């Protein structure tokens, strides 16, 4: 094995992998430095974080990786999208590290009319969904604009056609905003022109158009692409100035036609849409002026005729006045009776009213009230009489009862008096008897007591030989102290008295009375003599 393979190896030079890869890279990049390749976009990955775009291009049998660098992607007119068939222009590069190759795309265009149409249809639907083509956005084209703005190429058949047709119909002031109608910058220029016309202030140095025509001659679908671009469509939709689109031939439809307020089939058609035919209008106005004058004339003629006819029909003053005069006479004749009748009628009415008034007068009311009052008074008097009678009867009754009671009382009192008198008499007799007995008893007692008194009295004592000694004042002398010598005293005996003068004395020692014991030492009395 080794030997067999040895000679084969000996003939072929030996490559390093890097050398081989480098050689392949050079070969490929030299030979495929500029290629146009047609294929369908597959596995599309939008701008990734780095801004680059990756996808594959494929057909039925093969597939190649593709990349669009960020800077290129921003300039692309055709946005790559999944499934779109495109013609890509670029170069093939290889990746030494992976032994793979890819196409680096510089530009991209839709492949074939079908693909382009599909792209436009998708765009139309998207913008329609936004409402850019809505009928209610459409503005009316002015009938006779004074300034017409035209967005188109300043040279060529299109502007010439427009101006010639305007000249034929109604020469107007035209402002041409020059733009390129195809190529890279075309769409931006057209959009800028539409926006620029709208930005012109009314009454400024450059007059603001009353209507805008956006026009381009016929061409291939690719030639008309600028007028399909989104910025152009949006600018047309946003235009405040009514906008007429006239792009391509009658059969060509571009997206600006949907956004325009009016679509003209051709540039010439646009000129016809924006101005009327002056000669026709002049004829029309002249005709109107004739009719105007004629109508006025006929009107005044008719009025004059009517007036004349009426004037003829007008009756003379006598005829006019006779009727009213007759009515006046009639009325005058009926005036006085009517007046009297009227007065009578009023009088009757007045009488009726006064009767009614009388019936309602305060006097009547007063009388009625008086009658009522009298009735009440009668009732009251009757009631009073009744009441008095009743009261009298009651008093009589009471009086009778009183008399009865009095009689009874008197009876009762009389009996009681008699009884009392009897009792009194009895008692008095008893009292007299009792008193007599009492008196007798007391007399007896007094007699006996008196005998006792007499037996106990001073007289009895005196009679027994005792004497009473009195001083000059009559007071009893009880102690020797009182009988100082020289004192004049009186001595009473039972049968008389005599006066003495105290000669001397000495106090007694036997049985002096306790009362006079204190006085015993003070003097001598005549009593001592007595003992």
């Amino acid at each position: 094995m080794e030997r067999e393979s040895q000679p084969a190896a000996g003939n072929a030079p030996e490559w390093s992998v890097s050398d081989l890869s480098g050689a392949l890279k050079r070969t490929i990049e030299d030979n495929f430095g500029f290629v146009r390749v047609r294929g369908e976009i597959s596995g599309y990955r939008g701008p990734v974080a780095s801004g680059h775009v990756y996808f594959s291009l494929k057909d039925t049998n093969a597939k190649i990786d593709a990349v669009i660098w960020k800077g290129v992607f921003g300039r692309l007119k055709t946005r790559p999208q999944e499934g779109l068939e495109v013609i890509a222009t670029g170069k093939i590069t290889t990746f030494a590290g992976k032994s793979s190759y890819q196409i680096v795309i510089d530009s991209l265009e839709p492949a074939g009319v079908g693909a382009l149409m599909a792209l436009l249809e998708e765009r139309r639907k998207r913008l329609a969904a936004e409402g850019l083509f809505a009928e209610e956005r459409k503005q009316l084209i002015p009938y006779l604009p004074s300034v017409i703005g035209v967005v188109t190429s300043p040279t060529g058949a299109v502007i010439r056609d427009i101006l010639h047709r305007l000249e034929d119909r109604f020469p107007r002031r035209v402002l041409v905003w020059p733009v390129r109608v195809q190529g890279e910058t075309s769409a931006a220029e057209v959009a800028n022109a539409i926006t620029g016309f709208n930005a012109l202030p009314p009454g400024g140095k450059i007059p603001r158009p009353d209507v805008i025509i956006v026009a381009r001659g016929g061409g291939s679908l690719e030639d008309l692409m600028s007028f399909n671009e989104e910025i152009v469509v949006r600018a047309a939709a946003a235009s405040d100035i009514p906008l007429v689109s006239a792009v391509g031939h009658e059969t060509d439809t571009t997206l600006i036609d949907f956004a325009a307020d009016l679509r003209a089939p051709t540039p010439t058609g646009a000129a016809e849409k924006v101005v009327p035919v002056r000669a026709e209008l002049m004829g029309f106005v002249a005709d109107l002026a004739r009719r105007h004058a004629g109508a006025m004339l006929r009107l005044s003629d008719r009025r004059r005729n009517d007036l004349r006819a009426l004037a003829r029909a007008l009756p003379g003053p006598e005829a006019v006045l006779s009727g009213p005069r007759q009515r006046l006479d009639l009325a005058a004749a009926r005036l006085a009776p009517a007046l009297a009748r009227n007065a009578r009628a009023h009088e009757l009415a007045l009488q009726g009213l006064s009767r009614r008034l009388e019936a309602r007068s305060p006097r009547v009311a007063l009388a009625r009230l008086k009658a009522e009052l009298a009735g009440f008074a009668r009732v009251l008097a009757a009631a009073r009489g009744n009441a008095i009678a009743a009261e009298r009867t009651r008093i009589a009754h009471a009086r009778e009862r009183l008399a009865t009671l009095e009689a009874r009382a008197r009876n009762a009192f009389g009996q009681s008096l008699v009884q009392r008198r009897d009792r009194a008499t009895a008692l008095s007799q008893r009292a007299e008897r009792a008193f007599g007995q009492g008196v007798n008893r007391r007399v007896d007692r007094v007699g006996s007591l008196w005998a006792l008194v007499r037996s106990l009295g001073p007289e009895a004592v005196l009679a027994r030989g005792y004497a009473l000694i009195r001083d000059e004042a009559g007071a009893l002398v009880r102690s020797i102290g009182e009988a100082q010598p020289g004192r004049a005293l009186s001595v009473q005996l039972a049968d008389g008295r005599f006066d003495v003068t105290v000669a001397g004395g000495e106090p007694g020692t036997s049985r002096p009375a306790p009362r006079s014991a204190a006085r015993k030492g003070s003097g001598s009395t005549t009593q001592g003599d007595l003992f």
Partner: protein
Amino acid sequence: MSEENVNADVAALPFEAALKELEGIVARLERGDVPLEESIAIYTRGEALKARCDALLKQAEARIERITLGADGKPTGTTPLDVDN
């Protein structure tokens, strides 16, 4: 003199409006049912409207200009444009 005041607005009317009003006035006058005073008033207005239409139709000058653009794409002015050259 008040007539002129009443019809002063006519001078500012656009062509189409003036024409339409004139048509209306003519139609009314032709019907003949306008009171006298009013018929005179609207007739006068009709005259003014007709004059306005005539004036607008006479302003038929063809002035063709081309917008001149600055570097920023903004209009700077106009120059006459002769396309037939």
